[in-house]
């Protein structure tokens, strides 16, 4: 191998090279064939699939949120509005580094820890890919500008204009209209696939009150927009659009003037007012005091605000009008009186002598009248007028619990009224069976006496008391209370038919005397009224006090006082409105409750303009029919 050149066989080298080239050419042909096969596979065999995929790539379907239906009071005043608001939201899929982006945003807009925390929480929830997640609501003009200027370094960050619910009356309607809030995880999980679709553009859902009850009507129908986007999600053009259908507007029976008059009359005391139209069951006023600003909940309430609401001893979130269960006290006496006549156990015109207490046979215990000295000789009329307890102990005893229970049912005692907002409670209208089931005890005659004066185990919500009063005013026709004016006439529920007019007259005129007779319990409150009112006061004992409450002698004493109740309807000759009021720890039903009822009625009945409008619209409809 000293001289390689001499050993070289050029023919052999060329031959080897040719063989090797042949191998390589075969390899090349094979691999080129493989490539072509793959292209054939992609471009011909699966062409259709990839076309679909490519279209889906650039055509994005974007949901368009429908405008939520508005809510008006009976006079067309807006109670729930939609206001444009600029929301800063983030599409996580398009963000390179979320923490970095949040840090940049922190310099541009005011971000509280709460915003960040809420945002992180929302990110965990189920969501469509590329769905934006709100970070902050209600951006100010200068914040929008700062974000816009920095857009280039904030991929995936968007400023969206949205309509956000707004309640102009703030706390006035928190307990009736309720509020909307962000759809939470639990609600999301409960959604059917159809619901999930219909909320695709919507971030909020009715949480309580009418907003929740009428959610499906208020929501509207989602619309869609097909947009062509680039890979970074920038919308280049709109290809096709299906407009969303706005939700239905609601017109309520509620009257802002009456509502405000009621709240004013309560003057900051804890309590509730329910006023309903006797004919229709339309709720003219529903007040629960204290209240809160529902606007806080719309875009997510802060922990601080929420804690202050939930920890308040006054329970502002609690809707006393439909959830507060109070002993009705003497307000149910007209009902007992009617029952006595209905079952023929008493002669209403026969007077009995009241010594200030009542005793059962074979029992030592004295059932006291509120008036220690007694009322003297009382018949049924006087017993209602002066609210004589002894008369009703006797009457209740004569009726017995079974008949009492049956008769109370006609007035809706212990039953849901069926009002069109959720979370109503039904109070309690006791019976033998109830006591056996819930207390495990037999019924004692003493229990019956307590029912006769609306104490003991009897519980009713202010709404139930208003319905009971309206049923009295209607002479047995019980209506279902309604907040929303329905297009079809209101169906009435059970009627008490076989009570003769004369018995109604007696009870109603006795109630009238409560307010207008010199010896009536509410005579003071009724002086100088421009119309005649029938009413009944009540005082409910506050039972016990919770052991874990802090000792605060003044507050304790205050909260130990009796609840003041008053129910009434007016005008007597042609009843239009029935009102029930409770003032917690107000003590005197006549002194504290009656004036509130009067103010509400006056506001409702002395509205000449409103009446004219009603008349006009009614005649207008008449014309259309002809």
């Amino acid at each position: 191998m000293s001289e390689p050149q001499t050993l070289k066989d050029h023919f052999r080298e060329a031959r080897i090279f040719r063989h090797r080239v042949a191998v390589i050419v075969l390899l090349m042909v094979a691999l080129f064939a493989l490539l072509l096969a793959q292209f054939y596979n992609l471009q011909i065999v699966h062409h259709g699939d990839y076309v679909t995929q490519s279209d889906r790539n650039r055509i994005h379907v974007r949901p368009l949120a429908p405008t939520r239906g508005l809510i008006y009071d009976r006079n067309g005043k807006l109670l729930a509005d939609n206001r444009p608001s600029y929301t800063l939201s983030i599409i996580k899929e398009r963000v390179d580094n979320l923490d970095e982006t949040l840090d940049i945003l922190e310099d541009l807009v005011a971000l509280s820890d709460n915003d960040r925390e809420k945002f992180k929480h929302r990110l965990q929830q189920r969501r469509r890919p590329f769905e934006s997640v709100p970070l902050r609501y209600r951006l100010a003009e200068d914040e929008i500008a700062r974000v816009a200027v920095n857009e280039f370094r904030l991929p995936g960050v968007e400023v969206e204009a949205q309509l956000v619910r707004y309640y102009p009356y703030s706390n006035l309607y928190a307990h009736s209209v309720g509020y909307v809030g962000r759809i939470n995880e639990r609600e999301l999980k409960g959604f059917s696939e159809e619901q999930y679709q219909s909320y695709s553009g919507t971030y909020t859902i009715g949480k309580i009150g009418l907003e929740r009850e009428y959610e499906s009507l208020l929501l509207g129908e989602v619309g869609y927009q097909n947009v062509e986007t680039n890979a970074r999600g920038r919308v280049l053009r709109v290809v096709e659009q299906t407009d969303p259908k706005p939700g239905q507007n609601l017109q309520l029976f509620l009257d802002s003037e009456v509502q405000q008059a009621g709240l004013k009359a309560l003057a900051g005391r804890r309590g509730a007012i329910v006023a309903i139209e006797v004919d229709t069951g339309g709720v003219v006023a529903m007040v629960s005091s204290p209240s809160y600003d529902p606007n806080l909940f719309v875009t997510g309430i802060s922990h601080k605000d929420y804690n202050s609401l939930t920890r308040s001893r006054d329970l502002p979130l609690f809707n006393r009008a439909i959830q507060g269960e109070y002993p009705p006290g003497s307000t149910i006496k007209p009902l007992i009186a009617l029952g006595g006549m209905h079952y023929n156990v008493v002669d209403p015109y026969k007077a009995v002598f009241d010594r200030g207490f009542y005793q059962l046979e074979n029992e030592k215990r004295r059932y006291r009248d509120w008036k220690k000295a007694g009322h003297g000789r009382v018949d049924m009329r006087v017993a209602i007028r002066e609210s004589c307890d002894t008369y009703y102990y006797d009457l209740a005893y004569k009726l017995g619990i079974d008949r009492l229970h049956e008769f109370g049912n006609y007035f809706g005692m212990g039953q849901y009224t069926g009002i069109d907002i959720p979370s109503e409670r039904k109070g309690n209208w006791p019976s033998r069976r109830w006591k056996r089931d819930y207390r495990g005890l037999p019924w004692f005659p003493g229990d019956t006496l307590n029912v006769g004066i609306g104490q003991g185990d009897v519980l009713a919500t202010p709404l139930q008391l208003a319905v009971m009063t309206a049923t009295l005013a209607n002479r047995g026709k019980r209506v279902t209370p309604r907040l929303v004016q329905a297009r079809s006439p209101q169906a009435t529920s059970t009627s008490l038919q076989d009570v003769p007019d004369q018995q109604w007259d007696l009870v109603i005129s006795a109630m009238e005397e409560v307010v207008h007779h010199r010896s009536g319990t509410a005579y003071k409150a009724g002086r100088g009224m421009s119309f005649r009112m029938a009413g009944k006061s009540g005082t409910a004992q506050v039972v016990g006090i919770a052991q874990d409450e802090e000792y605060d002698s003044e507050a304790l004493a205050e909260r130990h006082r009796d609840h003041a109740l008053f129910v009434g309807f007016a005008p007597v000759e042609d009843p239009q409105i029935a009102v029930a009021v409770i003032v917690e720890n107000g003590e005197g039903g006549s002194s504290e409750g009656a004036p509130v009822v009067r103010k509400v009625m006056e506001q409702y009945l002395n509205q000449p303009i409103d009446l004219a409008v009603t008349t006009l619209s009614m005649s207008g409809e008449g014309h259309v029919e002809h």
Partner: protein
Amino acid sequence: MSSTDFIRRMPSAALDLRRPINFWTRMHIDVPLAALLIVLTLYGLAVLYSAGGGQWYYVKRQAVFFCMGYVLMIAVAQVNLAFLERWGWALYLFGFVLLILVLVMGVGAKGAQRWLSLGGFRFQPSEVMKLAVPMMVAAYLARRMLPPSLKYIVASLAMVIGPAVLILKQPDLGTAILIAMSGLIVLFFAGLPWRYIISAGVMVAASAWPAWHFLLHDYQRTRILTLLNPEADKLGAGWNIIQSKTAIGSGGWPGKGWLNGTQSQLDFLPESHTDFIIAVLAEEFGLKGVLLLMLLYGLLLVRGIFIAMNAQHTYGRLLAGSIIFTLFVYIFVNIGMVAGLLPVVGVPLPFFSHGGTALLTLMISFGLLMAVSTERRRVLKS
């Protein structure tokens, strides 16, 4: 043996003796090759115009590089092959030193040190090795008796493995493999015995498992896994492959039309003007455009093989063979990657991908091919 009859050894050369030497031969230009190059260049620029979003920016830059490339090609074509054969080692040594320098003082990007910065001009030394390695091995083997004995094989392997390891250290697995391949193919063409090839193949297969676990970087493993199942990480590593397959598949036979590819024009396709440009072509010109491309590449390879087989000397033959095979590997790896057959590696598509240095290297290699092609006539002429 050294006085072997010239004419008898080279029968085809006898015909050339009678043929007059024309202008192109005198200029050392292989006309069929040049014609194919120009057609491919124009096709590439047309696709690049679309891939760049219908803007002249990339096309202008690329056209400038092409001009430089053609000038270099013609210049290289003039070089005497014997000169190259003798002095090729100097280029190899130069490249070797540069590779070491890169590791010591290179400029990094994305976790890899691949560039040397020389007075503001950035330069990738591995480009030098793309040509220097096959030249070195070819020159070495051309002087030995072929097929090579074990001693020469080992020496050749050392020449190949040295630079490959240095490039692997940068780390740039793709380039290291390509450069190693360009040297090994010389050995193959020189007649490396099949028994060695087969046993090497067995060894590679056997070492696949340890290599996967100990040799590969995480990102390299991810690329391979992504190839096998791109759907696993749609928005991350799988994005490129899904988008490029979608682009190709949605093109169909006729294509969506020039500048009308939605995948490319709406930025869904990543790296659309560099490594993934074939997807733009396939989307906008369809399968017919792909077939045209393959035809042009095929003709180019055929012409290259023809040149190699008719080369006058072993050196030219081996060098031309290596250049052609390397070109084929670039084409196959790039298209295979974009079409989802191979893992994502940074290999440009010749004549199409935007990028200066790779293009200059490519044109220089065609210059070498032309030098080989015209060498025969030159020898006869002299």
